[in-house]
């Protein structure tokens, strides 16, 4: 079979510890240049090591256990953590925000992952963790960044377009119509990084997942095909998430009778 005639060099724990030496060099540069990032760097490096090793063991267990509910549980955890991360990055945090973000990301990544795994790849069993977990992880991670950008942008757009919005409302526009330009700008802001990365993928940088597949012995052509699908999945997932999110978020700035809420600006 294509791609399996490759001897993978296993990385020992000693190798991992030695690789921390790279971070020590960075810490040295930081000190030398007076950046004083050494503390954060060390913490970050250690967290990377612990978090990823933990995930590795968990995934190993899940792959071996092979149960649908465990796969769904892991994906739910990803969505919850991503939603909380998006919420934490916001200046205006509201109690409902993590739920809205979670809903938007579930919609975006759920639809996308379903279409690709069940209709396109037709994986068997439907929950095959080898496919579902990495694919969901990729789209949720990117939707998280898109959602953060979308919320930031819709908040700032509504604030800066206050007069335009009121002009629309005074002409008989609904709140949705009046906020239309803000919603479009926020969705655009969320989509641009994905579109940009589609423009340069393979030219400026090799994507992490594709690199990982090649390193683990997959034929570059298969890795590339997967990467293409992943890029398209990310685009759809970010589009759906940011659409759902911005269309829910703008409501907090309006009353049900189409008035701009001064106090929320």
């Amino acid at each position, binding site marked *: 079979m294509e791609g399996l005639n490759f001897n993978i060099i296993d990385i020992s724990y000693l190798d991992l510890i030695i690789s921390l030496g790279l971070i020590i060099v960075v810490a040295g540069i930081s000190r030398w240049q007076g950046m004083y990032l050494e503390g954060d760097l060390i913490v970050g490096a250690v967290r990377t090591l612990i978090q990823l090793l933990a995930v590795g063991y968990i995934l190993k267990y899940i792959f071996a256990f092979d149960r649908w509910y465990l796969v769904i549980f892991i994906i739910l955890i990803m969505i919850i953590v991503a939603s909380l991360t998006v919420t934490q990055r916001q200046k205006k945090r509201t109690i409902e925000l993590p739920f809205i973000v979670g809903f938007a990301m579930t919609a975006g990544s759920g639809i996308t992952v379903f279409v690709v795994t069940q209709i396109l790849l037709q994986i068997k069993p439907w929950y095959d963790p080898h496919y579902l977990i990495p694919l969901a992880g990729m789209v949720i991670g990117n939707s998280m960044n898109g959602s953060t950008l979308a919320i930031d942008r819709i908040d700032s757009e509504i604030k800066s377009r206050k007069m335009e919005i009121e*002009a629309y409302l*005074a*002409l*008989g526009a609904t709140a949705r119509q009046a906020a239309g330009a803000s919603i479009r700008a926020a969705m655009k802001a969320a989509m641009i990084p994905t579109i940009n990365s589609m423009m340069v993928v393979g030219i400026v940088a090799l994507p992490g997942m594709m690199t990982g597949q090649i390193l683990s012995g997959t034929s570059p052509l298969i890795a590339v095909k997967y990467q293409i699908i992943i890029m398209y999945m990310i685009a759809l997932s970010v589009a759906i998430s940011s659409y759902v999110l911005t269309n829910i978020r703008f409501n907090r700035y309006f009353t049900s009778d189409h*008035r*701009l809420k*001064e106090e929320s600006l």
Partner: protein
Amino acid sequence: MNKPKIELHKIEKNKNGIAILKDINLKFFSGKKHILIGPSGAGKTTLLRLLNRMEEPTFGVILYDGENIKDIPVLELRRRVGMVFQIPIIFDGTVKDNLTVPYRLRVISHPVKQDELTKNLELSGLQSDFLERKASELSVGEKQRLTVARALINKPDVLLLDEPTSALDHAAGIKLLDSIKELNEVLGLTIIMVTHQLEYASLLGGRVIHLVNGTIVREQESEDFFLNSEII
């Protein structure tokens, strides 16, 4: 005197615990010009914004043609009661694009009638050949006229004007006032204008309502009001 178009009964408006409007009882009459004057912070703009429900009163009732404005669908009310803001807000595109916005906002789209666009432009003091011009390239005075023309597309009965001349130079301000007078005479529009510029208030004429600290201190016909100017 005509029948009242809009009536305010015991209106109070508080913002952040501060009383902006106190016990306002007021009538605006159909087809008449009204000018709200007073120092800044008197509550003039707030009062104006209550009339098309851009803001809600804390207490009191507002009637439009005898009906509580809360019982009129708000989008319908805002079409009947048009509004022009202090700073002209121009949308992207041409003058025509701006004028067709009210058509596009309707759920059931109305066909754009070219003659309606030019008629409203001319009524607002702009020539019909402005239609294809880029709206952002107009002068401030022309932009303000365009916002008036745009508000007219909804065929309102009442036009609210919130300091419409304050961003304009004197000549442009006078021209705009002439157009507003014409709108009142030709279309029979009920005009309610906020201004702090007494000259414009006296030029427009009509009923003057003088607000101070959220209270009406005087209400009189323009000729009588400006006979005794030291009261301002």
